[in-house]
């Protein structure tokens, strides 16, 4: 396995683990407070919808000329990666609340309880929230799997890494029977942000017609370089910017992310 292939597998595995943990929290909340069979039906329907997206977009992406594919995919990966990295840096610096799966689980469970109705038989609420949660969290993974896979002609490897991540999270969730609060989500998001930004920069520049010195080996400089710069920004922020209290950090999340996945799940 080459260095680029290892990078692909690690990036997809980490990104998929993070998204799977978030989806698991939503499904667990629906299953335990409402109705397991409806929640799991929602998961099944979402997985089917994601498979259709892969089936439709996969061949279309791989059919693009490699130069166009690299500049488009590189640009999108870079935009995605910088978003992940920005949020991870703000969380590491204490300027944004960290993801708290237990708190999210409690909120989802409360909302499910407040919705009312006797969850006997088919429960539309549990089905819909589970469906939306898995679909929206899964779309990012599908995007990463397809773009990384298509760019390196390694869609099966990317899909396998994603499948392993989902299986690991499901196994851990079944074993714990609780939200996976101990997963170092922010560290993983930080790592994914670094990898997506580095690969995006590499492929984007190649697609635009640039040639990297030493070819693929340039990634060995780009990845540590981005990691170093991101850590330097965290270090600088911790020293120069007054830290927000947990309440203020939570408030800043609410103000900054009106279109976050969770609010999208509710509003959709």
């Amino acid at each position, binding site marked *: 396995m080459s260095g680029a292939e290892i990078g692909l597998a690690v990036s997809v595995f980490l990104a998929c683990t993070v998204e799977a943990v978030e989806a698991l929290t939503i499904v667990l909340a629906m299953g335990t407070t409402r109705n397991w069979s409806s929640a799991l039906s929602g998961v099944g329907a979402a997985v089917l919808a994601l498979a259709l997206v892969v089936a439709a977009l996969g061949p279309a992406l791989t059919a693009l000329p490699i130069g166009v594919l690299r*500049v488009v995919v*590189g*640009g*999108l990966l*870079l*935009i*995605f990666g*910088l*978003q992940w*990295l*920005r949020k991870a*840096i*703000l969380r590491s*610096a204490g*300027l*944004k609340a960290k993801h708290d799966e237990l708190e999210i689980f409690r909120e989802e469970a409360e909302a499910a309880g407040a919705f009312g109705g006797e969850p006997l038989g088919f429960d539309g609420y549990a089905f819909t929230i589970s469906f939306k949660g898995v679909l929206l969290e899964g*779309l*990012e993974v599908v995007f990463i799997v397809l773009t990384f896979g298509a760019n390196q002609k390694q869609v099966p490897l990317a899909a396998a890494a994603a499948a392993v991540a989902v299986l690991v999270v499901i196994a851990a969730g079944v074993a714990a029977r609780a939200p996976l609060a101990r997963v170092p989500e922010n560290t993983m998001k930080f790592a994914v942000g670094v990898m997506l*930004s580095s690969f995006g*920069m590499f492929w*984007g*520049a190649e*697609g*635009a*017609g*640039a*040639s*990297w*010195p030493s070819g693929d080996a*340039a990634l060995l400089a*780009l990845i540590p*370089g*981005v990691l170093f*710069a*991101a850590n330097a*920004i965290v270090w600088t*922020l911790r020293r120069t*910017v*007054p830290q*927000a*209290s947990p309440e*203020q*950090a939570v*408030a*800043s999340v609410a*103000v*900054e*992310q009106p*279109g976050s996945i969770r609010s*999208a799940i509710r509003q*959709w």
Partner: protein
Amino acid sequence: MVRVPRRVWTFYLGVWDFVVGDDWRTALGVVLALGLTALVAETSLAAWWIMPPAVLSLLALSIRRAAKGATRRS
């Protein structure tokens, strides 16, 4: 004036949020940096050096804006 159906508008907003996220300036900066790389690559000059400083500058500026916003609120 053409009225855009609510569902179409919601879908558009969803795609925009998914791709661009909450900082459109960074997305625009990435497109401009790739465009500049393509322009320089057309000449006899090396073009690989444009992306690393451009990306790190975009990241730093984006963090700066977010940090300013966070401290203003606190």
